[in-house]
């Protein structure tokens, strides 16, 4: 057993760390926490910088625009990326993070050639149309209709919680093409251009006062037949495969480590009763407990990497990364705002106070969403109970 990285991995880590240190612009660095986003213009610019460096999707093979990183290198890359204070890159999250791997596995050659290059350059921004007003945790009961008429599907219905739809060009959709059998069986996977007539997008304002997501309405929207991914009725299976790509990325542990470092640095600088806050017996004990939990989660990633290295599938330890990581992240955000004292109630005082206060309050409010999206904590626990522990369903 070994805890250290190999010398090659260590060299790569240093290279990545140095590059981000030198190239992350000040208006991008240390701006966000808790999965909150950068202003869109800055995000596109940052996307382009990474694309030009060849690091927009480093886990992809070189011939597909990636850097051909191994899984360990990919982990190191993501870790160092977050650790330098760079934001979660929402311009690639669903396109290169989810859809591209799916197209490479299940899409046609035409679909791959047509869509993937523009995902890389950032020319096309994608959003994900899965959830509906009545299909959240129970996704399979979605009922947005797609009826094949000649060479086109005709779409009617509504999607919601669609992140970035107001800035996106394309959407990938789960739609109902058959209502006769089991609800999982009549679902298909479609790609649609958001400029198609009949699509209306309405942003939803979140507790952050931003609109990170939208409702998307479809009214007799005609989508060409060749935009079907896989076969008719395969949508549910494909959605499952798409979520498989989240294996290691189910929770960005580097962001968590960055967040707790932020708390630690802040509590070293904040003075309370004449001493740094970190010397306060209650505060330091809380911080230590969180660091112990963060480290235990980080070492869980090391266990998974060790499995992947020898080609075996990760065991059950991969099933709880999201639920535990998001809940732990919320606890870290709580302590981060606690460290601010009176400043913890501040809201958009960007001119008056330094950015770390805005970063903390925005990160805190945004972190409350982490345990909801991408499979709520309740759903995740039920999955662990029934699929990992094999408790009876009925």
């Amino acid at each position, binding site marked *: 057993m070994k805890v250290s990285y190999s010398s090659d991995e260590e060299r790569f880590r240093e290279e990545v760390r140095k590059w981000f240190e030198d190239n992350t612009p000040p208006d991008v660095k240390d701006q966000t926490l808790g999965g909150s986003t950068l202003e869109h213009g800055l995000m596109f610019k940052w996307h382009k910088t990474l694309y030009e460096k060849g690091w927009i999707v480093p886990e992809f093979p070189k011939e597909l625009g990636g850097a051909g990183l191994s899984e360990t290198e990919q982990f190191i890359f993501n870790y160092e990326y977050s650790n330098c204070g760079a934001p979660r890159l929402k311009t690639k999250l669903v396109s290169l993070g989810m859809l591209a791997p799916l197209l490479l596995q299940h899409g046609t050659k035409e679909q791959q050639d047509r869509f993937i290059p523009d995902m890389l350059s950032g020319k096309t921004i994608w959003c994900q149309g899965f959830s509906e007003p009545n299909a959240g945790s129970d996704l399979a009961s979605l009922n947005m209709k797609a009826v094949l008429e000649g060479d086109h599907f005709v779409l009617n219905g509504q999607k919601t919680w669609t992140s970035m739809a107001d800035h996106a060009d394309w959407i990938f959709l789960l739609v109902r093409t058959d209502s006769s059998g089991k609800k999982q069986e009549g679902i298909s996977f479609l790609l649609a251009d958001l400029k198609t007539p009949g699509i209306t997008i309405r942003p939803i304002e979140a507790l952050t006062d931003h609109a990170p997501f939208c409702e998307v309405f479809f009214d007799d929207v005609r989508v060409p037949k060749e935009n079907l991914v896989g076969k008719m009725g395969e949508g549910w299976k494909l959605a499952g495969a798409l979520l498989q790509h989240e294996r290691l990325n189910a929770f960005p542990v580097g962001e968590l480590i960055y967040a707790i470092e932020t708390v630690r640095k802040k509590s070293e600088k904040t003075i309370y009763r004449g001493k740094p806050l970190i010397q306060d017996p209650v505060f330091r*004990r809380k911080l230590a407990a969180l660091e112990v939990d963060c480290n235990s989660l980080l070492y869980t990633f090391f266990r998974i990497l060790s499995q992947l290295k020898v080609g075996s599938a990760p065991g059950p330890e991969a099933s709880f990364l999201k639920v535990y990581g998001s809940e732990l992240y919320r606890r870290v955000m709580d302590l981060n705002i606690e460290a601010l004292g009176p400043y913890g109630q501040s809201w958009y005082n960007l001119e008056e106070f330094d950015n770390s206060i805005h970063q903390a309050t925005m990160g805190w409010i945004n972190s409350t969403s982490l345990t909801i999206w991408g499979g709520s904590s309740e759903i995740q626990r039920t999955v662990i109970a029934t699929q990992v522990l094999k408790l009876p369903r009925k």
Partner: protein
Amino acid sequence: MDFQLSSEHLSLKESVASFVKKDHSFDRLRDLRNDPLGYSKEVWKKMAELGWMGLIYPEEYGGLELDFAFVMVLLEEFGRGLLPEPWISNVLLGGNLVLMGGSESQKHEVLPGVVSGDLMITAAYLENDGRYDINFCATSAEQRGDAYFISGKKIFVLDGLSADRFVVTTRTSESVADKDGITLFMVSPQEEGVELTPLKTMDGRNACILELKDVSAPGSNVIGEVGRGYPLLSEAIDQATAGLCAEMVGGMQASIDLTVAYLSERTQFGKPIGTFQTPQHKAADMFIQKELALSSVYYAIASIDEKTDERALAVSIAKAKCSSAYMEITKAAIQLFGGIGFTNEGDIGFFLKRAKVSEILFGDTNYHLDRYTRLSGY
């Protein structure tokens, strides 16, 4: 970065598992509650014959000279079955101190006996008013002529009742809580002025109070250098703590297995209670805590194995995590079992009691969080 276990590790795991299954049971634990020692010398001897006492000791003393990950797999299996035999105190504490700091003649006198299972040795280092601090040492060793005379009182000496030798911490210089000035002595219980008071711990195992009244010990009984005992003690206790954490993870796994089986078979309101979401989610949390604890143990074990500077930090992370996880898991398990969980007729209660003793042994969560803050430079 490599947390993979080799086929040799896995094959030891298998043989320990089948040993525990064959030579041990919860009913045996029930019987041993009334035994002052809380373990069986017969089983101990069998374990020695399998070579397990010498697992990490050099071949020179009859050992197998294996890496520290073997300790992890061995203790995980002991923990799963709650095997009460005193492996940690003998191999990782008492014997280990002799191995790490002893002279050649001390090693030859003690280690072959530990390996064969014929000589029992533990460490006595906790005192009243010191709580968990291993640097707190008021027991004095006064030099008069060629010999030292030791006076003081040690509490909760792990598995002390059957010990043939104690490694005792004494104060030979500096003040009561200093890390410098601690000297380790090997002391036999037969020496004049040694008094043992037997104690039972909640899990049915034994400990003792060791009182020393002007006990004479020759200079040749000093382990390591005079006044330099602390670094040895600290390293041995870190290794013992990492081992205990592995044992705790085994116990967590067994608690979860028992609970999941119970939830699947116990029927109320016309269906297994495991179909209800409240118990399901509690069980999921038990699983999550166990996995995190296991990860922390891997890191601690690998840090010891690779001899990194992070050893102490990694051990404190693991012990803080395992202490709270094992308590949470076993408390939830008792709750999910309901009434039968609160009885001695059920098995799950053994894990709760072992979790409490393990939480306290080598320092509880708060102690290790505090140690973590100091080690990581808060």
